[in-house]
């Protein structure tokens, strides 16, 4: 029976029609997050009608279940209660994501460089400048198979370099990264690009030598730390932490809700950064501006204050640590004649000494936890091992692990499905879809390998050698193992196969990588990616990949800190153009080699999805039929969640029976492993130091280079994207902190500049500026603001690469093209991509347009940015 709804004045729409409209929409559950290695978050509902995505919205956990069925948790502290939201807390990046499916930059069919002929001239020097033409899948596969065979014959399979990146879309059965590894293994081998522990540099290369923490050098356990903070902490130090931004791609906005609750509980929040980041903007009780990458000096001055005032936990240090006396020697100036006083630190950090002292005294008098969201640019700069180690040592000096005093993470909750990594009330089961996952596992070693940070050197300047990085999560001892490239009996690399790459705009010295891509040694580059952007511009062959909306899969929510979920993922829309999934692409290549059966182990996509469910951990909690019918399953909370010891309380109470993974089993102020293996390493000595400059880096104001490049740059994880993702979403680009529209109509990457520095250089808000050092220059849009301290400029990494002169001058704002070349330090091959010297000047657009007419004449989409049209020609 239809009920009429009168809208107004004779205009009627029958409610029945509205109901029909609603019924025609299918609501499908999808994981729209970007860890890129299988475990996800940001569970969303995608409403689809007539083959089109209508909207993306949060999932309500109680959509198909009564809350009692999943035992919602609550944290009680100081007379108040914190509960999860009944809907998923997806960020704007997920809400806007259909724009990526429908992006004007989608690669619709296989593309080949116009001037690349595998049987004739390859014109390698034109990579990055050439346009692309459409070819058929058949032709593409012919080329790929031909090249792989040629590599095998001419050089051996190790000549094939497989990138296997991360932080593309989160897919399981259609693994977004690394599907090719298994096939290459079947074909006889390959050289792996081993990703450096880029999210965790300072912790991995530095802090591991202090407290041995596996897998990545940050505090484990994290168990129940949100409850610990709520009940026991008086002071939270957010050190290089932006929990309002960084977790967006990995877990949504629960961290935001917690931060508001901590304020409600009366817990003081101090933010220590060069810029007033998005978390500090709304949560800070105090912002302490500090020069980029000078935290080590501040840490040392705090230690000095505690030592001279006798306000550190001497007993704890005696029973829980090793080597304090040697550390004290350095701090008090007995080693180098320089006592690390607050006055000394004031010079370096620009933090007034009275504030350093006041902070040191407050920290010593209150139960204090340090919060990281992974540590930000503070642990991803030159010599980042030092501030990272020192942070842990300061925590140790105040009784690390006692109630209220831990290192707490705001991201990667439940990392690797490990219960100890979950700081919020844990579920009964951590979902594990590993058996269905076809992509790469970054913790599995492969030989031969090249660390991602050394790829350009490997290509341009072999042979090279380095220590450690056998995997992204290798234990401390691996850092003493030496590797070489080319490896014994292996070839140099001559072919690169990359999937959803993110190198030029995200790694160290992108300009150098561009040079490497154009080396005649690299005879063939093939890329798989959904969009024509960034590193793909340098490929000879590009294969179109579809987005997860176009694929069937199985997903989980493991990181959101709300409820953990398992859900089958249906296809929302048909594949755009001729795109296929990464997994399907590798299957096609496998088939050409007659290896399809071996590669797939005879399993279909449907089989894999089912296997994922059967081994997920929830197979005994819900039937497959019910799971498909309901669309998702909410894993109930572990009723005993509160009993798990919080953080490092067990180590704190009984260090001898809860040994750390260090040689002494204790916290090492003097790193015995480093003393044994690298005793003379002045860039990462056994006792952490303030290293103003050295052989690897000269990026502080203390170095003469600062005369020419007097500004320090801080480069954060992007606000409006995940690394190099999301760049062409018009709705994000309209936001002033996302892009600054220049007088030429181009949307530039914002560069935050303090009014004093802007005025000095005649720069006004909205001007196009050039930022540069010896490594090159980029153009950006001036965003003059009080949210950054004087002497410092801030620009997010990940901007879409748009070259004016490849390797020299770039327009999109890809700051990593001019980031330092060398790794964290001599023996630590992490990347250093923040906290370095630059200068800036107002750009003369008229002059630039005259000098580089071709680049400036290239069409760009007025709201989506550098466009597909610029790079594709022919049919």
């Amino acid at each position: 029976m239809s009920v009429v709804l009168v809208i107004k004045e004779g205009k009627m729409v029958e409610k029945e029609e509205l109901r029909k409209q609603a019924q025609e929409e299918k609501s499908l559950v999808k994981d729209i997050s970007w860890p890129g290695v299988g475990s996800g978050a940001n569970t969303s509902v995608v409403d689809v009608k007539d083959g089109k995505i209508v909207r993306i919205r949060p999932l309500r956990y109680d959509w198909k279940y009564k809350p009692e069925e999943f035992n919602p948790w609550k944290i009680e502290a100081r007379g108040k209660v914190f509960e999860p939201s009944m809907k998923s807390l997806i960020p704007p990046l997920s809400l806007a994501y259909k724009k990526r499916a429908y992006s004007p930059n989608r690669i619709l069919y296989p593309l080949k460089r116009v001037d690349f002929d595998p049987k004739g001239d390859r014109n390698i020097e034109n990579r990055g400048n050439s346009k692309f033409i459409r070819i058929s899948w058949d032709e593409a596969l012919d080329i790929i198979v031909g090249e792989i065979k040629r590599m095998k014959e001419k050089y051996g399979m190790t000549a094939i370099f497989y990138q296997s990146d991360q932080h593309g879309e989160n897919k399981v059965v259609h693994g977004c990264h690394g599907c090719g590894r298994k096939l290459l293994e079947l074909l006889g081998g390959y050289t792996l690009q081993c990703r450096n522990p880029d999210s965790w540099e300072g912790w991995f290369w530095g802090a591991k030598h202090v407290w041995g923490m596996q897998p990545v050098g940050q505090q484990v356990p994290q168990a129940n730390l949100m409850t610990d903070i709520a009940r026991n902490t008086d002071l939270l130090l957010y050190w290089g932490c932006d929990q309002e931004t960084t977790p967006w791609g990995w877990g949504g906005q629960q961290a935001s809700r917690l931060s508001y609750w901590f304020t409600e509980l009366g817990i003081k929040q101090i933010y220590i950064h060069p810029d007033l980041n998005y978390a500090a903007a709304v949560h800070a009780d105090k912002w302490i501006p500090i020069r980029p990458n000078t935290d080590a000096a501040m840490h040392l001055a705090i230690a000095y204050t505690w030592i001279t005032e006798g306000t550190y936990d001497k007993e704890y240090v005696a029973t829980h640590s090793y080597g304090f006396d040697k550390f004290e020697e350095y701090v008090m100036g007995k080693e180098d004649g320089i006592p690390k006083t607050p006055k000394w630190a004031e010079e370096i950090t620009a933090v007034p000494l009275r504030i350093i002292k006041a902070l040191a005294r407050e920290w010593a008098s209150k139960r204090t936890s340090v919060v990281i969201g992974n540590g930000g640019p503070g642990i991803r700069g030159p010599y980042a091992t030092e501030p990272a180690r020192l942070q842990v040592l300061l925590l140790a000096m105040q009784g690390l692990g006692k109630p209220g005093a831990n290192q707490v993470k705001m991201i990667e909750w439940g990392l690797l499905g490990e219960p100890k990594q979950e700081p919020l009330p844990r579920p009964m089961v951590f979902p594990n879809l590993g058996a269905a996952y076809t992509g790469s596992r970054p913790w599995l070693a492969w030989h031969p390998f090249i660390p991602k940070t050394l790829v350009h050197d490997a290509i341009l300047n072999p042979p090279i050698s380095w220590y450690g990085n056998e995997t992204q999560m290798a234990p401390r001892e691996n850092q003493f193992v030496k590797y070489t490239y080319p490896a014994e009996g292996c070839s140099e690399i001559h072919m690169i196969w990359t999937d959803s790459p993110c190198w030029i705009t995200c790694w160290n010295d992108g300009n150098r990588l561009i040079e490497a891509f154009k080396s005649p040694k690299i005879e063939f580059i093939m890329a798989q990616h959904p969009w024509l952007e960034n590193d793909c511009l340098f490929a000879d062959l590009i294969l179109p990949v579809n987005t997860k909306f176009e694929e069937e899969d199985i997903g989980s929510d493991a990181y959101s800190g709300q409820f953990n979920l398992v859900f089958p993922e249906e296809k929302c829309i048909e594949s755009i153009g001729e795109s296929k999934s990464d997994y399907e692409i590798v299957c096609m290549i496998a088939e050409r080699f007659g290896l399809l059966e071996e590669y797939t182990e005879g399993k279909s996509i449907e089989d894999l999805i089912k296997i994922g469910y059967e081994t997920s951990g929830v197979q005994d909690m819900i039937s497959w039929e019910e799971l498909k019918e309901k669309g998702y399953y909410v894993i109930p909370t572990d009723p005993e969640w509160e009993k798990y010891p919080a953080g490092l309380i067990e180590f704190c109470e009984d260090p001898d029976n809860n040994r750390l993974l260090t040689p002494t089993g204790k916290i090492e102020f003097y790193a015995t492993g480093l003393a044994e293996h690298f005793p003379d390493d002045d860039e990462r000595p056994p006792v952490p130091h303030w290293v103003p400059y050295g052989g690897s880096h000269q990026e502080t104001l203390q170095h003469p280079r600062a005369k020419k490049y007097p500004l320090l740059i801080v480069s954060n994880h992007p606000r409006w994207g995940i690394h190099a993702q999301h760049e062409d979403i018009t709705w994000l680009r309209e936001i002033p902190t996302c892009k600054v529209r220049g007088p030429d109509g181009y949307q530039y990457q914002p560069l935050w500049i303090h009014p004093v520095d802007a005025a000095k250089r005649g720069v006004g808000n909205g001007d196009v500026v050039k930022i540069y050092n010896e490594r090159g220059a980029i153009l950006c849009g001036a965003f003059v603001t009080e949210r950054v301290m004087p002497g410092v400029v801030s620009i997010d990494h990940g901007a879409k690469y748009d070259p004016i002169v490849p390797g020299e001058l770039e327009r999109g704002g890809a700051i990593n093209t001019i980031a330092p070349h060398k790794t964290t330090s001599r023996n630590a091959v992490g990347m250093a991509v923040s906290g370095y010297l630059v200068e800036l000047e107002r750009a003369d657009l008229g002059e630039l347009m005259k000098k580089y007419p071709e680049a400036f004449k290239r069409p760009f989409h007025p709201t989506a940015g550098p466009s597909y049209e610029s790079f594709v020609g022919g049919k």
Partner: protein
Amino acid sequence: MKALVIDITKCNGCYNCQIACKDEHVANDWTPYAKPQPDTGQFWTKVTDIVRGTVPKVKVAYMHDICQHCDEAPCIPACQQNAIYKRDDGIVIIDPEKCAGSRNCIDACPYDVIYFNWDLNISQKCTMCAHLLDRGWKEPRCVEVCPTEALKFGEEEDLKEDIKRAEVLHPEYKAKPRVYYIGLPKRFVAGAVYDPEEDKCLEGATATLTDSKSGEKFSTKTDNYGDFWLEELKVGTYSLAVEKDGYLPQKIESISTEKDVNVGDIKLYQKVKAKA
């Protein structure tokens, strides 16, 4: 009748609301409620960053501009086509099929929340997602995606506790808006007090602000960093007095709170000790 409450103190600036609105109304046709808005350029709900203060006393507040669905909406009588109407639930709709593109409503709206679509030749604005509410949704897209409950939507009666602590924008327009704001930023005066001779932060100093016009006083004590914040001030002129036992007092006159003010570091000098 429906109301929307926006609590600025709970807004983290994620822009979920602005994006969800785009997700719903770009490239989706909800005639007779609304036609699609263009891909960019219209902001039926708009977030604006307000950066307050100067280094290091800086905060950010996020303002929200949205159709106020006024009870005395000036756009309604302004429309010559009678295309704009108010529903029983209070929501104001511009009928996209009746609109002739005259743009009188845009001129009439004092809140500047109506946009013109040059391709479709119609005026457009927020519909409170009436097309979804009529299907049974409890709230519009913007409210649904807000992670912190900074946005609340529902029957006025159910929101009356929040509405009591809220204010409306520009009551002097007499449009009787149905959107209520909690925590609209006023002004702050902040600073830090220290002893330059001992180079130490001064805790427990009293900072007193006097409104030059009304004489009203606002007072607080500095914390362990010597910091003080005096908040929720009106726009006006003030004088500041800073005092601490054992120190000579300091005064700063004519502080204008046209913008939020960071008076910077205030030095207090120790009183010369009397000789016995």
